[in-house]
């Protein structure tokens, strides 16, 4: 029989969710962790148990940061927290109700405390041709490598900006994949450039790691081209090549698979759906839920921890998960605030270090402005409904200055993804048309359920 109530329900099995579950269970909270995936780890440590068990060779490809997740996964397995993998959460409501679909049946779980730990997603990269089959987010290739031990068997072109691009390209090249080109919009950043950023010295080890990836790619003979502009994916039924401009000249490189990346942003679907107040983060150029240092939102029962509350990376996510669990215990009367503060001291110190590191990375690798917004009138903004830039601009010309107005006029954001992907793009298109910042465009509202649920499941809802 499925559980119908608990003290602390955690949504998401990545570093923040697992760390929160370990801490919550240790404090005697009746804790349940719900996760869409079949095994713990989140996307960052996806498949870590299977890799260790059956594909240990792949650890050399994936690197030590990935392997670091094994300790947290093992601690979570031993924690005593209830674990429900394969659970799709389609709503979280401020009164504590969580809608879950699992194994073809839906139910409502009532939680005294809800911790949303749904992590990050890749920022969309709406360049011409981005909807073609054979074009994926760079993280998708990592997912296939981690979860399935699968790598591309066709020449890959990686396009975009951000440190993750170097990592993905390095991992694929280590696995023997032909990287036809790494096309970066930004300049080539050396250690001397990096050290000009305030706080960079304290981030020295992280920066060295990034430079090591770049040097490793060079050593493997992977062409890295910096200062690229106007990338276009060519192909009719499938991606065939990427053309781009560098140094005033147009170039073209054939590709069987194109990987795109322009940094990561919080996945706000559940926190938005729960009407948690959101704030614009100018440094990371994205929306995130408003939280205090314990992850608390404007709703008394709901907290958000990890990258879903602002991008800080896996180590910070674990700290924030533990801190949110400590705060949950205070709110449930199992701990007093002074104990909480004492128990959080190590995590607070680690968090400060991670925040300073992230600040350096954010300044070194801002999102590439050119990749945020499509220009051509026929360029696709909304993948689901095939809504173009021209249609959005037409709505703006008719007086729609806010994202939800534009959505109502154009259907942009009304497809199955509910604007997860096109939301940030539509905001940029509107903002550019009106000559203002993207934050002024607002955010698409989210309708529950946040994931599609068959009507038959809702009809037999157990609650």
């Amino acid at each position, binding site marked *: 029989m499925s559980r119908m109530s608990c003290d602390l329900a955690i949504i998401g099995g990545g570093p923040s969710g697992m760390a929160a579950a370990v801490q919550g269970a240790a404090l005697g909270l009746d804790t349940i962790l719900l996760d*869409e995936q*079949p095994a713990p780890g989140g*996307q960052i440590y996806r498949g870590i148990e*299977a890799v260790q068990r*059956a*594909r240990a*060779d*792949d650890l050399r490809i994936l690197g030590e940061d990935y392997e670091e997740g094994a300790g947290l996964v093992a601690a979570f397995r031993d924690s005593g927290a209830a674990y429900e993998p*394969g659970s*799709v959460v389609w709503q979280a409501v401020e009164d504590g109700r969580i809608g879950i679909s699992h194994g073809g049946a839906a139910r409502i779980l009532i939680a005294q405390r809800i911790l949303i730990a749904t992590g990050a*997603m*890749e920022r969309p990269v709406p360049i011409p041709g981005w*909807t*073609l*089959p*054979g*074009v*994926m*987010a760079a*993280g*998708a290739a990592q*997912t*296939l490598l981690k*979860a*399935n*031990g*699968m*790598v*591309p*068997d*066709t020449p890959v072109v990686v396009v975009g900006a951000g440190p993750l691009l170097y990592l993905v390209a390095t991992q694929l090249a280590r*696995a023997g994949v032909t990287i036809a080109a790494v096309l970066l919009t930004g300049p080539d950043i050396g250690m001397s450039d990096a050290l000009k950023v305030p706080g960079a010295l304290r981030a020295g080890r992280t920066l060295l790691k990034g430079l090591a990836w770049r040097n490793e790619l060079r050593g493997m003979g992977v062409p890295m081209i910096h200062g690229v502009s106007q990338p276009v994916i060519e192909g009719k*039924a*499938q991606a065939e090549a990427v053309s781009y401009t560098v140094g005033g000249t147009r170039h073209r490189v054939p590709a*069987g*698979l194109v990987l795109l990346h322009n940094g990561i942003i919080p*996945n706000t679907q559940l926190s938005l759906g729960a009407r948690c107040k959101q704030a614009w983060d100018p440094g990371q150029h994205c929306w995130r839920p408003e939280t205090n240092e314990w992850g608390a939102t404007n709703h008394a029962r709901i907290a958000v921890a990890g990258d879903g509350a602002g991008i800080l990376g896996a180590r910070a996510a674990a700290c924030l998960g533990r801190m949110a669990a400590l705060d949950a215990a205070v709110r449930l009367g199992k701990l007093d605030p002074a104990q909480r503060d004492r128990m959080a001291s190590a995590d607070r110190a680690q968090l400060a270090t991670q925040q300073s590191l992230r600040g350096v990375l954010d300044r070194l690798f801002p999102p590439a402005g050119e990749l945020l917004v499509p220009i051509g009138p026929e360029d696709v903004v909304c*993948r*689901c*409904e*095939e809504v173009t830039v021209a249609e959005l601009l037409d709505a703006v010309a008719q007086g729609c200055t806010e994202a939800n107005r534009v959505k109502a006029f154009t259907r942009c954001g009304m*497809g*199955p*993804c509910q604007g*997860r*992907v096109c939301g940030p793009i539509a905001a940029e298109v509107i903002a550019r048309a009106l000559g203002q910042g993207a934050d002024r465009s607002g955010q698409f509202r989210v309708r529950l359920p946040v*994931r*599609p649920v*068959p009507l038959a499941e809702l009809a037999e809802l157990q609650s």
Partner: protein
Amino acid sequence: MFRRLHELSATVTVFLDDAPLCVAAGETVAAALLIAGVPVFHAAPRYGSPRGPHCMIGNCYDCLVEIDGMPYRQACLTIVADGMRIHRMTEHEASS
């Protein structure tokens, strides 16, 4: 488009558009189809443009397929099962 770094151990049989396909137990429908060399999963409803998996983590809804008679399922979030019947949704159903 993809290859495996390791030999398959446990396998199950699914049916893709009624043809049997041997896939790795425990993998997602999206991974199984990609390794089988299937780039197109469905057609976008307005103009019928071909679509395949893009994000692989449940956000883009471009890997939609019909699974055991239920349309619009996210292939990247669904684990294969022996005997599972998968149909690509590539028929253009434009109505607008």
